[in-house]
Structure formats: structure tokens, C-alpha cells
């Protein structure tokens, strides 16, 4: 199969990595896009979701956001954004062609897992723990910062991890609408029937995705206090569709509800 040889050649030739439009530049560009979009989504979504969770209200909102997000194809949203007058295909500094459109789409798709998980995480802190904190004379902000937030952290982290993987995937799809990022190597390869190149791009994208996922998993483990770990569940891709099916988990008798569901990849 010559396609594997072509792929190997492309991956091992220095020319495909260096220079403008080289894989190294595109890789950095996509990492930059991913990081920026994740930060935007965190700044927007996290305070809102944590606050709603603290109040114990707005579950309807959280679940619906995540369901709607799942039904809207990433590709369609990106295509619409670049075709609209604004943001269109305008170049945006280091973010490249259609940079703004891509950032908007990425941030939007990062929101559902962050919002759903953070909301559920805070709301599902056991009532008796909250009660005890109140009984000790803690004020609302104190309860939130010193009781609810630490207990919610693992599930919040799992939402951020889902968002990270989601954003990386979406950033790849941006290339389908001539956007920035590594996906361009894949689409270029396909549109010019240079499948070796397309496959090479896919290999790099997939490897980076796995590295991101594993690093995020390690970070998540680091922020999970011993005893609060729930094994597969917190890190799992359980879904919001079965939100009624919360399950008792051993340590601390914490009811952990399913995290945000898998979205469009």
C-alpha cells in the first residue's frame, strides 16, 4: 500500500514541518486557538455555572444548552460563521484565516460540557454537608469557596477535560471551511488527492489529541482529593441525557450525576 509510504515520507521530510504553512506552524496555531477558546469559554461559562449550581437553580438551562449543542453540527456552524458578513473569513493575527469565526465556534462548543459539569458538580454536593457548613455559621460565600467548590472540583475538571478534547476536534474541522489549523493538512491532502499527506495530517492530529486527553486526565487526577475519586465515573463520558439516572458512589456517599455528554466531535 503506497499510501503508507507516502505518509511516512511526508512525516519524515523536514520540508513538511518547517516554514509558513508547515505542520509545526499549523500545530502551534491550532494549540493557540484551542487554548484561547478554552479560556474564553471558562471565563464566560464557569462563573455562571458555579453560581447557578450554588443557587441550585437553572438545571433546565444547563441540560438544554448541552442538548442543543449536540444537535448543531460543528461543520454547519463554522460554515455559517464564515459565510455571514461578520465574522466572515477575515484574518485575525496569529489565529489565521477565519480566525475570529473559528474562535467563536470553538468557544461555543466548549461551553456545554463546562456549564453542565460545573453546575451539576456544585448542586450535587450532598445536602447534609451543606447543612453542616451552615450549622457551623458559614456565610454563603464561605460555604461556596470552602465547601462546595473543593468538593465540586473533580467533576468541574472533568468538564474542562471534555471541553478541551471537544475544542481540539472542532479546531480540526475548521479546515473544512478553509479555516486555520492542522486540519488544513488533511483537507489539502484530500482535495489534491494526495492521500499520503492527508493521512499524515490525521496521524499528527490524532496523536496530539491523545496527548491532550492523557495530560488532562493527569491534571484531573491531581486535583481530585484522595477519597473523592470515583474511578471511571468522574472522568467518564457519561451523558446528560440520562441525568435522571444518578448513581451512588462509594466514597463520601456522593451522588455524582453524569457529566456533560459527548458532543459533536
Amino acid at each position, binding site marked *: 500500500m503506497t499510501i503508507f509510504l507516502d505518509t511516512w515520507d511526508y512525516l519524515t521530510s523536514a520540508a513538511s514541518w518547517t516554514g509558513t504553512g508547515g505542520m509545526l506552524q499549523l500545530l502551534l496555531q491550532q494549540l493557540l486557538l484551542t487554548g484561547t477558546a478554552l479560556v474564553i469559554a471558562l471565563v464566560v461559562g464557569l462563573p455562571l455555572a458555579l453560581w447557578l449550581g450554588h443557587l441550585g437553580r437553572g438545571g433546565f438551562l444547563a441540560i438544554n444548552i448541552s442538548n442543543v449543542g449536540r444537535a448543531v453540527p460543528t461543520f454547519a456552524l463554522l460554515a455559517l460563521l464564515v*459565510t455571514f458578513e461578520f465574522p466572515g473569513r477575515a484574518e485575525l493575527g496569529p489565529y489565521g484565516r477565519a480566525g475570529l469565526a473559528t474562535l467563536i465556534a470553538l468557544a461555543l462548543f466548549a461551553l456545554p460540557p463546562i456549564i453542565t459539569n460545573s453546575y451539576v458538580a456544585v448542586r450535587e454536593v450532598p445536602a447534609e454537608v451543606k447543612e453542616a457548613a451552615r450549622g457551623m455559621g458559614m456565610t454563603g460565600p464561605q460555604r461556596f469557596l470552602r465547601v462546595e467548590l473543593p468538593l465540586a472540583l473533580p467533576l468541574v475538571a472533568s468538564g474542562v477535560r471534555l471541553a478541551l478534547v471537544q475544542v481540539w476536534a472542532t479546531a480540526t474541522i475548521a479546515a473544512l471551511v478553509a479555516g486555520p489549523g492542522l*486540519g488544513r493538512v488533511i483537507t489539502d491532502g484530500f482535495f489534491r488527492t494526495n492521500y499520503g499527506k492527508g493521512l499524515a495530517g490525521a496521524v499528527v*492530529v490524532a496523536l496530539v489529541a491523545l496527548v491532550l486527553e492523557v495530560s488532562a486526565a493527569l491534571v484531573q487526577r491531581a486535583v481530585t482529593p484522595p477519597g473523592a475519586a470515583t474511578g471511571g465515573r468522574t472522568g467518564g463520558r457519561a451523558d446528560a441525557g440520562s441525568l435522571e439516572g444518578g448513581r451512588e458512589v462509594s466514597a463520601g456517599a456522593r451522588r455524582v450525576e453524569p457529566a456533560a455528554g459527548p458532543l459533536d466531535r
Partner: protein
Amino acid sequence: MRVTLPAESALPSALAEQAEPSCYSRLTNEWFCGQYLVDRHAEITEATVEHVLITVASVAFGVAIAFPLALLARRYPRLESTLLGVSTGIYTIPSLALFPLLLPFTGLSPTTVVLGLGLYALTILVRSMLEGLRAVPDDVREAATGLGYGAGRLLLKVELPLALPVIMAGLRVATVSTVALTTVGSLVAYGGLGNLIKDGVNTNFRAELLTAAVLCVVLAVLLDVLLVLAQRLLTPWTRGAAG
């Protein structure tokens, strides 16, 4: 003569003089255009049918693989973490990269798309199946065994029905995400409505783009409603109960 070809938004001014261009001509290029639906209905229908077929085939493939895997993982707990790890790994790979990775084996064919999407669906389905089967209360299982149910009959008549709500929740998520993901199949020219989206964005054809995007969402909602109805029919005993 009507100008029906969509093209760049730059309008040659000479063409602008022509009488009553249709709402999807390159002159007007409107987002909403009834005429487009009428004139191109064959193409739209074909893309929609392809989209539905790819979605259904992918989810069916996912179910067919996920069910035996879930049973195996339940029987051999050590297998479970491996299975979940591998499927999560596959799920982490963006769809635009997964299709090229399958290409050497399946070529530029619908199989590539169905296989890729089936693998994503599988990840969601295995989890919900394990979850659902695990949620069956032990005393129910014991009671059935006491009544003389063998392993097969226990699974089909007792465990599966009780696990159905959780499994159906997983199936809904898998289906809705698959509808959305099918569009990316346009990379290998089998993307259903995604092909129209790709064409729409490449030729700046607004009506085509918006129509295809809206149809995707409508399709997702429709299939979701169908699954909810199926679930209500399959689990009549849950009706009336809370949730």
C-alpha cells in the same frame, strides 16, 4: 434567462440589470429561499436520505458491536477498563482525522464514514449498556434465578427491559451526535447534508448552506423524538412514574 448559478458575492454589474432573478441567484443570494427548495428538491432529498442512511447504519453498527462487548466486559471485569480506555481513546480522535485513518482500509466509500461514526457511537453505547445492566437490582436478578430463569432468558426478559431506560438515553445521545457528525463525512464525499454544506460554503451559496444546516438540526430532533416514542412503547411500566 434566470441566473441560477450561485457564485462569488462579487456581482458583475451587467448581470444586475436582468429581470427578476430568483432568490438564490448570485445576485440576491438570499439566506431563505423557497424557490431553491422547489428547484433543487431532488438534490436535497437525495442528500437527506443519504444522511439518514449513514446515521442509521452507523448507529446500528455501533449497537451490534457494543452489545456483545458490554456483555463480555460485564463477564470479565478486567476487560472492562481496557475496553473503556480504548474506546475513549478512539473517541478522542477528531472525526476529520479518524476518516483519513480508516481510508487506507476502506477507501473513499460510505463504509469509511459508517465505520468511523459507528466507532464513536460504540463508545457512548458501551458505557450506557454497562451502566444500565449494572443498575439492575441484585434481588430482582436473584428472584428471577430462583424462578428458574437461565442466563439467556434472564438477560432478555429481566435485565434488558430494566436496563432499557439507561440504554435508550445512551442511544439518543449517540444518534443525535451521529446526525451532527455525518456532515464531516463530506471529506470523503459521503456526508449527506454535509455535502450540501461543503458546496454551500465553497461557492458562497447561502440558501443551500442554511437549508442543509437547518435540516441537520431538524433531523436530529426528529430522530430523538422517534427514540423517545419507541422508549415509551417499549417500557410502558415507566409511564406515570416520576421521571
